[in-house]
């Protein structure tokens, strides 16, 4: 298990507006109610791959440690399994909080330790905007590390395996519902920027 240590919390690394910013977009997650019991972190099946535990992330939001929170691997590694929320005695919606933190990190272009993650979310949204439904091969192709021949080869063998089983639809979904999906995306983006 990786554990990072913050040696010193100085006003220099604290951003007092961060708590307010998170509160504004994630109030419904009840993250203010966290009492640091650690049940979430003990239960998390992906904790081994995170640099900070979910409990530490919440504490750091409260302390205003914006950069550490938003550049942590934790917010991207969370697999949204809902175990923490199921067990939290204060009903803190940690998975939704992680999603909101990702949203801030994407908007503010914070460098991400897991290079493919922001791209995953961006490409996913673009595909839905285009077809209304997912087109799996298109998403996968955009997420192949083209600089790594090993990754290209590895994905090619997976693709062959799936093609043989009839599990890859080469053509994208029919697009007869595009107009209203596109309008939904555009109207919502305008509303979100308000």
């Amino acid at each position, binding site marked *: 298990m990786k554990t990072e240590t913050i040696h010193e919390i100085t006003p220099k690394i604290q951003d007092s507006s961060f708590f307010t910013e998170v509160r504004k977009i994630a109030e419904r997650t009840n993250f203010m109610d966290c009492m640091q019991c650690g049940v979430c972190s003990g239960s998390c099946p992906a904790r081994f*791959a995170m640099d900070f535990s979910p409990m530490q992330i919440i504490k750091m939001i409260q302390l205003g440690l914006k950069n550490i929170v938003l550049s942590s691997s934790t917010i991207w590694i969370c697999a*949204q*399994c809902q175990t923490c929320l199921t067990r939290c005695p204060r009903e803190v919606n940690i998975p939704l909080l992680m999603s909101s933190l990702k949203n801030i990190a994407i908007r503010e272009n914070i460098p991400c330790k897991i290079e493919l993650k922001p791209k995953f979310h961006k490409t996913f949204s673009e595909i839905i905007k285009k077809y209304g439904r997912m087109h799996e091969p298109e998403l996968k192709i955009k997420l192949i590390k083209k600089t790594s021949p090993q990754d290209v080869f590895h994905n090619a063998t997976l693709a062959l395996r799936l093609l043989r089983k009839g599990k890859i639809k080469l053509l994208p*979904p029919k697009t007869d519902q595009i107009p209203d999906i596109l309008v939904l995306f555009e109207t919502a983006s305008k509303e979100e920027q308000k």
Partner: protein
Amino acid sequence: MKFAYYPGCAVHSSAPEYGLSCKAISSILGIELIEIPKWNCCSSIDAVYANQPLTSIGLAARNLSLAENTKMDIIVLCGACLLTLSRANKMLHEDSELKEKVNMLLTNAGLNYNGSIKVRHYLDVLTNDVGFSKVSEHVKVPLKGLKVAPYYGCLLTRPPGVTNFDDPEHPKSMDKLIEALGGQSIKYEEKCCGASLVLTDELVMMEMTKRSLLSAKNAGADCIIAACPLCQFNLDAKQSDIQSHYDIKIDLPVLYFTQLIGIAFGLSPKELGLDKNCVSPKRLLKQFQNA
């Protein structure tokens, strides 16, 4: 009983056997599935949310509204669709300001959502509406001696208060189903498969999925059954990669629960899409094929 059927994107692409087997057993069980016309992606938990939160709720609500027009509850097959649609449904119920905003997004498409429908998983309907005694009435080939590991997946029963059909910590519906089919459900340690990490952090996903596969294998399972196309993909299609990465042998077929029901109902492998599972279930089939 009639439902507004929401297959979800995976059933239309990487999980055709789930849709096939579901339709095949539904006609036997008297569950009428009427596909929601022009449904769209549910927005997949936070795949869209992380970019555009309001858009993602709008996408989910569009499906809710289309189903509401048909005056039927939604039936879904995928755990991620289940959580995304029911969570949006709950948010819209609880937050009238959000509902107003989202309805504004839908107006352009001539839609509106009042909040009158429920989102149900197929297993929920099987458990609570059809009932397992009715399921067992249709069993032609009891799965005697078959040890099955039920893989509930994370999102079928969690979090509490959202999907609400089985115990979030100790679900039992699949165990009861396995028994109703004449098989034996086994206890093992089930953990999250890593879901979409398969696309972005493969090593983390393989470590997560490996735990459940090995646990089921060591508990003596003959196969696993899944109720979500994302879980099934990681457990089945990625199983050979996991084997070679860790240099271990697992060789555990992963069926959809609907396929297992179909086998016990005596349906043909073709009707159940059993040729589409990556880890071949041929050995199991030999044991239980009607012919």
